[in-house]
């Protein structure tokens, strides 16, 4: 079967698949950047946001930060193994990264369940609307990344399409970077 053009072509001096990932991330910067910029201007213009933010659980946010940082380390190790042509090892590190994604989602589910039970729903006020929108959009990216990683790991196990390990790794690190900013904005600045 012919290889996809993103694998074989590199007219822009980098493989087209990698360029595509950077394009996706550039558009993601605008999406998350716009959302976070909106949150920051509301946070600065509305002192009551500080009181609302006091109800977010810093410990849970911190645990999730640790989980994502660790999963990012696993992703870079997967990339390294793929570069060495060791597909099976790369798949193992990818599965560990998926484990991090699942842990993150479980913790987030617990956190949201608790907050919703307390009455802090998305319609409560502007702060909670921002909170659920930003964290929810981020969680959607975590779910999407984990699914794609599982598909890539299946191929990597057979030593196929190892270049894709780097591509999903770049995406995953971006998801980590977004959380690095969400954590202080939603959990620390009270």
């Amino acid at each position, binding site marked *: 079967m012919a290889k996809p053009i993103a694998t074989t072509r590199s007219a*822009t*001096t*980098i493989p087209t698949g990698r*360029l595509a990932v*950077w*394009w996706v*991330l*550039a*558009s993601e*910067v*605008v999406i998350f*950047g*716009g959302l976070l*910029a*909106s949150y*920051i*201007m*509301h946070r*600065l*213009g*509305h*002192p*009551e946001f500080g*009181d*609302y933010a006091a*109800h977010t659980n*810093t410990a849970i946010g*911190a645990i999730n*930060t*640790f989980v994502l*940082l*660790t999963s*990012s*380390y696993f*992703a*870079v*190790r997967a990339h*390294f193994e793929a570069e*060495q042509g060791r597909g099976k090892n790369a798949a193992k590190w990818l599965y560990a990264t998926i484990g991090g994604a699942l842990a993150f989602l479980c913790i987030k589910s617990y956190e949201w369940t608790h907050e919703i039970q307390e*009455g*802090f729903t998305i*319609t*409560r*006020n*502007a702060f909670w*609307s921002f909170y659920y929108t930003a964290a929810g959009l981020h969680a959607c990216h975590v779910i999407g990344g984990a699914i794609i990683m599982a598909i890539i790991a299946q191929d990597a196990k057979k030593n196929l399409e190892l270049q894709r390990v780097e591509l999903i*790794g*770049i995406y995953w*690190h*971006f998801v*980590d*970077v977004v959380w*690095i*900013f969400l*954590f*202080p904005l939603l959990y*620390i*600045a009270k």
Partner: protein
Amino acid sequence: MSEGAKHHHEHEAEHIRHYTKIYVILLVLFLVSVAGPVVGGLVGSKALVLITAFGIALVKAYLVCAHFMHLNIEKRYIGYLLGTTLVFMFLFFAGVSPDVMEHRGRNWENVAAKQETARAIAEHAAHGDGEHGGGAHHE
């Protein structure tokens, strides 16, 4: 083990050490970013809170982008591409923030925002919790 294989092995170990070192630095920064605001709150230093929370977030993001995403060795135009989107974000912020952050200007007043802020602060002062009955969105 041949000289070439030994060199390759050492090269690999060096890469892994580098990634592990960056990960450990990220963990240390993470701990500081959690502890810093707590200490800042105790001593009443807003600057300490801001530096440890947001300053360290910037450093962490840089480390991940440069060393895990390999932007430090990526083609330069990728950096320009991402930088351009960041500039758009700042333009958006600069253009919109005066209308959101201020509740009155020369020829306008955001009555709803002012009322909601006053209501929420008064409610928090009364109950020690700004959440009771706070259903209304401002603006």
